[in-house]
């Protein structure tokens, strides 16, 4: 095993990339959830249409 490969085991789990993805997912869930709520309350998604 080369030294560079051995060091890979000790790498921390890419915090910046993972963090960015989590934040996007959090905001995406928030925005989609609230948009769906408003669409139902305003009648754009009518009662009984959700399977």
């Amino acid at each position, binding site marked *: 095993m080369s030294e560079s490969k051995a060091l890979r085991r000790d790498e921390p*789990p890419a915090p910046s990339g993972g963090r960015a993805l989590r934040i996007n997912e959090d905001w995406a869930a928030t925005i989609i959830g609230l948009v769906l709520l408003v669409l139902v309350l305003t009648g754009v998604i009518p009662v009984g249409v959700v399977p």
Partner: protein
Amino acid sequence: MSAGDAKAPQAAAAKTVPAGEAAASAEAGRSAQTPVGTLIGLLVVLALAAVTRVLDKNVPGWTEGTAFGEVAAAIEYPVYAIVLGLVGNAVLTATGLRDRLSGAFRTEFFIKTGLVLLGASINLAVIVTAAGPAIIQAIVLISAVFLFTWWLGGRFGLDARLRALLSSAVSICGVSAAIAAAGAVQAKREQLAYSASLVIVFALPSIFLLPWLASVLGLSPEVAGAWIGGNIDTTAAVTAAGAIVGEDALAVATIVKVTQNALMGVVAVALTAYFAFRVERRADARRPGLGDLWHRFPKFVLGFIAASIIATLYLGAVGSDAGKEVIGTVNDLRNLFLILAFVSIGLEFRVASLREAGWRPIGVFAIATVVNLALALLLASLLFSGFSVT
């Protein structure tokens, strides 16, 4: 589960195989995902969700009068969704398609969207009333379980970073907390993989075990919900177990779990400071500020509260009777997203995770889970015995 979460178990291979091979394997898993594969994966998730709906609506009728009839009538939709997800997982793994389609198995995204919609079915007054006991329970539980797990990890001779990950995972909110702690303490990849694997392996049986125990112990829906929310690690599993018990238990379990989620940022920032100043004693370490707290704060909590405010104002304007049907449609949408999340729990589960974890982290996690179980039951009984959702 976030993208980072979903990839965590793949990194577990770093413990048992040469590092270069593990990195190549993890890279291969990621590179196997294509837009077409993710689209097909989404169709698989939607198809299993549709089958869940069909089974939930029709199995009681199909089995009425048979020996299975009574059991079938008691089965709630999370059970069908998780079991179908596990079956789909086995089929996709056997056919070698699982990694290619896994980009669509987004448990965390589905559950967070479902929880934002769930906020609409909980009156703001209930959230405000429950916030006090929920915050007290979360602070006592997180502090006690975190410190106990930290101490126990030391007794078992675990590395300080792995102790931080396991303590965060078991005391706060599972994989998300382990990810946040991993970034805070600069943990190794395989340590994150250990923690993520353990959370999932322990959460799955808890979904079925805790509702059953709550029934055996004769807990009220509110106490059962607070117990489930305070004990089960992952938010998706809390929601599944709460839904099995019923609507009131689901509401309290969600409020308790969302409160714990909100405190995750505080623990992550405290860990960052502790490791920088006390463990590593870095000369360039800076004191964390409010920006760090906001950075770690799970933003869907804001959506959950906003949905409750919007729905409460809406019902106040149109009246409860007129708005009931409309909120019912929001609940249908919520259930749809929860089913997608529960199907994804089954699809993401890895049987090999437990073997990869090694016995010492498993021992620490198992003992900490039992302590969490007992302490959460005590706190839930003390803080929520007189609480009513209605």
